[in-house]
């Protein structure tokens, strides 16, 4: 054990390079390239603001990812600090944040306009991974530890809900709960709380904001207001459905080109992709995501450190949830909640968080022989 530790700390730069997960990196690069092209299409086939900005962000954050991957995984045992910094940022947002379209989500850091709630999606995983890494297996199901874990989850959720941002808070909740699940919290507890949730659902709904209720109603029946609340989802389904098997072709998606698609840069980016590249393209994109998820899980399996396992599995699940929530939303399977598609959607904070996550996963790969902090 001691030997291992020493061995790990003595990894040379070239050993580290050799140990990178190249398939994962390849998939990320591929996805990045696709996303730039799709962004180019949303700009109407011209290199305009979104394309440029997205491209620059990808370059910067990809580099950041590579830098992070060379950190020793031990570094992330500082994750409590990371977590608390984000909490502080969220409080800052609540007080001094930038308002846009009715919600207060952003903080201006001069070089970047950051959305801390996006970072919290990673922060919560890191924090809980650390927490469960430390926790003795016997005390996992103790009242105290569960209370602590839930508190870690609930504090950011309350802050994010207040912005208000239902989509991100749901994703944060999922990301946190998955660590609880992996940590060995009794299945019974999950089951009981799920039932409790279902029972209290009507009560929760009564607390929703009118626009959120409207979204749920619209989801249940988009045709009740085709030009108003139901417009996005109807147009999205039309765009995807009209794509057909092989799509309308690059830059030929009429729904997006003629501006029938709302928010095509961000949450509805898949709609545009699917319209232009069709069923086959969509399957291809899903395959890339699947490979990414599988590679991350594989790294988790390889890792000897439980922290790394927690993080990799948690992050893989989070990526999965982002994709599922986003696709279900644009396909009309879920009500519309703001949730970006990793890497593909325009938006710096989301990409920053995702890239940090990939960086940590890659670092876990390099340091997979290391067992303990």
């Amino acid at each position, binding site marked *: *054990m001691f030997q291992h530790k020493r061995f790990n700390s003595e990894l040379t730069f070239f050993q580290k390079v050799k140990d990178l997960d190249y398939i994962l990196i390849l998939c990320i690069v591929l996805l990045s390239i696709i996303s730039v092209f799709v962004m180019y299409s949303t700009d109407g086939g011209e290199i305009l603001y979104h394309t440029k900005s997205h491209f620059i962000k990808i370059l910067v954050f990809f580099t950041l990812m590579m830098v992070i991957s060379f950190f020793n995984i031990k570094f992330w045992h500082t994750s409590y600090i990371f977590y608390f910094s984000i909490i502080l940022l969220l409080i800052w947002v609540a007080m001094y944040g930038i308002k846009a379209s009715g919600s207060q989500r952003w903080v201006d850091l001069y070089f970047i306009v950051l959305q801390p709630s996006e970072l919290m999606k990673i922060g919560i995983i890191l924090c809980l991974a650390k927490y469960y890494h430390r926790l*003795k*297996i016997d005390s996992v199901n103790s009242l105290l530890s569960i209370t602590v874990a839930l508190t870690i989850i609930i504090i950011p959720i309350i802050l994010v809900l207040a912005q208000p941002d239902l989509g991100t808070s749901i994703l944060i909740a999922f990301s946190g709960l*998955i660590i609880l*699940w*992996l*940590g*060995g919290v009794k299945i019974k507890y999950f089951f009981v709380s799920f039932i409790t949730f279902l029972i209290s659902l009507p009560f929760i709904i009564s607390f929703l904001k009118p626009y959120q209720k409207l979204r749920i109603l619209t989801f249940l029946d988009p045709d009740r207001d085709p030009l108003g609340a139901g417009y996005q989802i109807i*147009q999205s*389904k*039309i*765009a*995807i*459905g*009209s*794509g*057909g*098997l092989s799509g309308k072709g690059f830059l030929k998606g*009429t*729904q997006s080109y*003629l*501006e*029938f698609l709302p928010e095509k840069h961000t949450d509805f980016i898949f709609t545009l992709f*699917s319209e232009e590249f*069709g*069923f086959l393209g*969509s*399957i291809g994109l*899903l395959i890339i995501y*699947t490979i990414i*998820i599988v590679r991350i*899980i594989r790294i*988790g*399996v390889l890792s*000897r450190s*439980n922290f790394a*396992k*927690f993080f990799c*599995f948690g992050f893989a*699940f989070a990526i*999965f949830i982002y994709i*599922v929530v986003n*696709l*279900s939303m644009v*396909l009309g*399977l879920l009500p519309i909640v703001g949730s970006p598609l990793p890497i593909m959607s325009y938006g710096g904070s989301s990409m920053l968080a995702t890239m940090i996550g990939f960086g940590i996963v890659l670092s876990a790969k390099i340091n997979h022989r290391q*067992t*303990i902090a």
Partner: protein
Amino acid sequence: MIKENLSIRKADIINRRMFIIGAAKVLIFVGIIGRLFSLQINENKKYLTLSDKNRIREWKLPPTRGSIVDYFGNIIAGNLKVYQLHIIPEQVENFNYLLNRLKFLLQLSEKKISNILKSKKKLKPWESIIVSENLSWSQFVKVNNYLYDLVGVKPVMTISRNYPFNDIYTHVLGYVSQPNENDILQNQIIQERFVPGMKVGKLGLEKTLENHLIGTNDIQRYEVNAYGKRINHLEYQKGKQGSKIRLTVDTEVQKLSAKLLAGQAGSISVMDIYTGEVVAMYSSPSYDPNLFLFGISKDEWELIRNNPLKPLINKTLSGLYSPGSTIKPIVALSALENNIINPNFKVRCTGKTELYGQTFHCWKEKGHGVVSLNNAMKQSCDTYFYEIARLLGVDRLKITAKKFGLGEKVLGDYFENEKQGLFPNTSWKKNNLGKGWVLGETLITGIGQGYTQTTPLQLCLMTAQIANGGYSIKPKIIVNNDPLSFEEAKKNMKEQSLINFNTQLFKDEKNIKIVQEAMFSSTNEIGGTSYRSRIDNPKYQFAGKTGTAQVKRISKRERELDLKIDQIPYNDRDHALYVAYGPYENPRYALSIIVEHGGSGSKAAAPMAKKLFKLIIDRDVLREKQPNFEEIDI
């Protein structure tokens, strides 16, 4: 080591739980792929259609109306290029400025401006507002010169209806104008093809043949974005011009009719006695249908509406007149057919006859003496017809009259305003007036007065069917696909009567002959009522019957005064009627003439027949040369 064991146990839990989640992930991904499949593969067609609906917007342009030609192919309702000015509101930068500029350039009235503003509110921003429907060339040039300053204005060259013969055909064709709400609601096809600026038939054949004439819209397809802005011009789909329709009418005869009736109220109809083709059908006075194309001015409308000669009424089809003596051939025929009389039956006319204390006067106060059937027809002796009507009875008379088309519409559905007229009998009176028939009424029915009401075209048909030897013909005004020459029609007519007994209107051919001869005498023998209008040349020689229909009952005092026509107020004067057919030897055409308040038939109406027959028979040669014609769709 314990610590490490614990760690390994922990790792086991993590891994196990991971794989439970992994299985769930696979299921969810499969579900999403399933959804993608159902949207993109199964329902692809549906969504493709929806996406096209989103992006493609069609701009319909007014369809080009089919033209209407006369028998010889002369266009009587055609299309003319006109210059129009449209505004497309979404392209206008400053609407008020534009209106001011246009107001100055085109001298638009305040009312017009407020109309434009009104229609701007009603239309969608990409739909064009029509500022002016019919710009003069100089105005059009002016606008084009200032076009740089008139953003959003579109000078348009388009096609409009045009009636080259002005008022000659108004009552046949009707006219087109802007459709009102009713026009659109009542006609599905107009509803589908409606575009602002389009004209639809309002009256006459233009209205009844609307669905044939209308044509299909030219369609411009544009790709538009979510805000309705045009992005790409996709295609221009040329519509189909409406069907060309050929009528049976002859413009020359129609023109002569108009000339003969100029300044008078009345009607002239001419019909081919074998084919039933209406050669002319003119109601006087008429008005210019071109006035209605771009909206008639109030003054012009008032002028037409208030004309005492009532130009708006189509007298040929909806004017109801007592037939007067023109009914006598039918009365005579009916009496012969029912064996009430034979040609030698004689009546002594003393100028009046008495029935139950009521006196019935003959037009000739001194009486005609003893008259036979031929003489009675020739001199139009009323007493004779009182007598045979009395013997015959109104019910039997009605049967014959009905056979010959009285009391029924002649052209059927082609004219909405055609009246069916009335020929009374005892049960009609019982049912409609609730009173029993009185014998005296039979007597006056026998000279075409009383309840009887006929349209000029009915009288023409009646005469045609006497002229062709007593066979039923189907009158028509539109040349159909397979027009028969009159020889074929004649042959057909006789063959048909052998199969279908109803088309033969007589029991004994002899009787028709007797009536025809009587009509000949009336025109061509000395003492005949229309003797002065005769033509001796057998080529043009015709046979006819005059009629003078009383408009009001003549009082005893008036009878004694025996006023001249110009001493009677216009509205109390008798209607002058004349029915005739010719050439007598080998008849081809029948006509009916009515001059409202024209006095006596022999003086006012019969002379017109002389001029008409000359022209009609001269043109018969041409008419027979042109039995066929291309592209007739009805």
